[in-house]
């Protein structure tokens, strides 16, 4: 690991990251505090409406019954589109900084003329990506515990949800890095990553409303992230985690290979 490259990452991304951390913390505290009270008042009525049940199923990634425990209701805080959007915003911003944004801006010449292998650049960025992702998830966990008071699920279950979310983060990051290494225009890389994330989101929402959608649901990354199974049904999502890690590792490796072989042409 090269200290200079870490310095560069820190210097470039510190303010954005601190704002994201704050955003995740504030959102998770508020949503975890509000959700149980909100559902307590209207859960029975809402769960009797098929459309709303479908929405909840889509959001939580699993069939919900007629009754939801406060812990199960709180699961929505882990799959809320705002939280996921913050994570994806971070992923898109971070993973497309290097190499594609450097190539697009023309600053690649400065960094790649230094006596450091491309793999070292790629590894440093990837480790920083993992570290920032882990920090974001731990911040979300802290926000969840603070916001929910004593109503949250058991800590080991929450840690399993965090592990599942981290695996989802790794899978998306792997794909984002592959896009970042293939393109020379940042806007194009971002466009493709965004399209895949949107597709995945759309697919997970489609299935409860359109039953044949279940045959293609496995194509979406969110299909492998179902916190309600952990919280409400005590399942350990080992298969989901392994699939997500496999996807992430495959894309990441392809990205590393593409980056090593590509030309760095800024003109």
């Amino acid at each position: 690991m090269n200290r200079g490259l870490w310095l560069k990452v820190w210097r470039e991304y510190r303010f954005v990251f601190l704002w994201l951390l704050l955003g995740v913390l504030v959102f998770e505290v508020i949503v975890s505090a509000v959700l149980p009270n909100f559902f307590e008042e209207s859960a029975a009525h809402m769960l009797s409406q098929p459309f709303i049940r479908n929405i909840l199923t889509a959001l939580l990634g699993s069939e919900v019954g007629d009754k939801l425990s406060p812990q199960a209701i709180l699961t929505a805080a882990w799959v809320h589109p705002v939280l996921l959007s913050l994570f994806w915003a971070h992923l898109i911003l971070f993973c497309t900084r290097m190499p594609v944004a450097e190539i697009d801006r023309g600053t690649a010449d400065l960094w790649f003329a230094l006596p450091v292998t491309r793999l070292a650049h790629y590894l440093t960025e990837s480790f920083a990506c993992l570290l920032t992702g882990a920090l974001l998830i731990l911040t979300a966990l802290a926000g969840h515990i603070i916001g929910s008071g004593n109503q949250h699920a058991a800590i080991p279950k929450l840690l399993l949800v965090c592990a599942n979310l981290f695996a989802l983060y790794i899978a998306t990051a792997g794909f984002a890095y592959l896009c970042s290494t293939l393109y020379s225009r940042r806007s194009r890389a971002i466009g493709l990553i965004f399209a895949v994330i949107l597709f995945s989101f759309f697919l997970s929402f489609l299935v409860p409303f359109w039953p044949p959608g279940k045959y293609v649901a496995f194509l979406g990354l969110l299909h492998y992230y179902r916190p309600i199974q952990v919280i409400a049904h005590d399942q350990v999502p080992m298969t989901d985690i392994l699939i997500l890690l496999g996807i992430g590792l495959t894309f990441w490796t392809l990205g590393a290979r593409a980056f090593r072989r590509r030309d760095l042409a800024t003109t």
Partner: protein
Amino acid sequence: MEAIRTERLSKAYGERIGVTELDLVVEEGAVFGLLGPNGAGKTTTMRLLLGFLHANSGRATVFGRDCGAESTRVKRDIGYLPGDLRLPLWMSGREAGRMMGAVRRRDLRESVLELGEYLELDLDLDVRSMSRGMRQKLGILLALAHGPRLLILDEPTSALDPVTQARLYDRLRELASDGTTIFFSSHVLSEVEGLCDRVAILRRGRLVANQSLDYLRVEAGRAVSILWHPGAQPSGEPPGIVELERQGALWQGRLQGPVRPLIDWLQPQHYEDLVIEEPDLDSLFLRYYAEDSVEIEADGTSGRFRPGDLA
């Protein structure tokens, strides 16, 4: 020792030619100028040396090391200034020095301070607030700070004021006299004349000349004017003069080769005045640059080409 060697180095961007079968040798300690019109392949050559681009065929080495396979080791010895310099906007000179030092695992603070003073650059100003000339100075500073054995400079004086240009030339001469190899591209012919030992000229990706500057001066020829006494009857043709124009008592042409035979020829004749001007490198380079000019076979190792082809 050879600082740079390329052997039949070729690079194409799809249909577009970068460089084709480039054979080039730059000796250690030389100041080598790479010339050519826009799109001739100068930047491509430099980017191949830095390992930014992968050659389609051929090979490039720096100090005997392969630029592709040993790129990281090669870059330890190189200071590079890109032609289209872009720097991160948040970076100040001081910060850039610290960061580059950390990446290179060397303390560059002293040399950054010294160079900042030499180039009259405010090191606390961030790039966002810098003029284009100041950014260029920072680029030069970062290329020189670690004391590289080989400097690769792509149009180093663009955007620099004349005073800083002169300072840079002085520094480059000092570095060259201390053994640093300087490989640079330029469109400024006076810069090439003032600095280079040797130049290579590229056109459409091909090497069309690779010569010492002294040789090119001879080859370029010098404008010669001979004014005859009224009634003088010159005998024979003046030796070494080409493109001779006779306008009454005034003869004008271009001298190629040494001046001695011309003086010997004039000695017994009734001439009134003889004017021999400086070698006209501009027109020679322009002839090389010109699309329809004759290609000269260049030999990167011996540096010989057929002078007769120039005429």
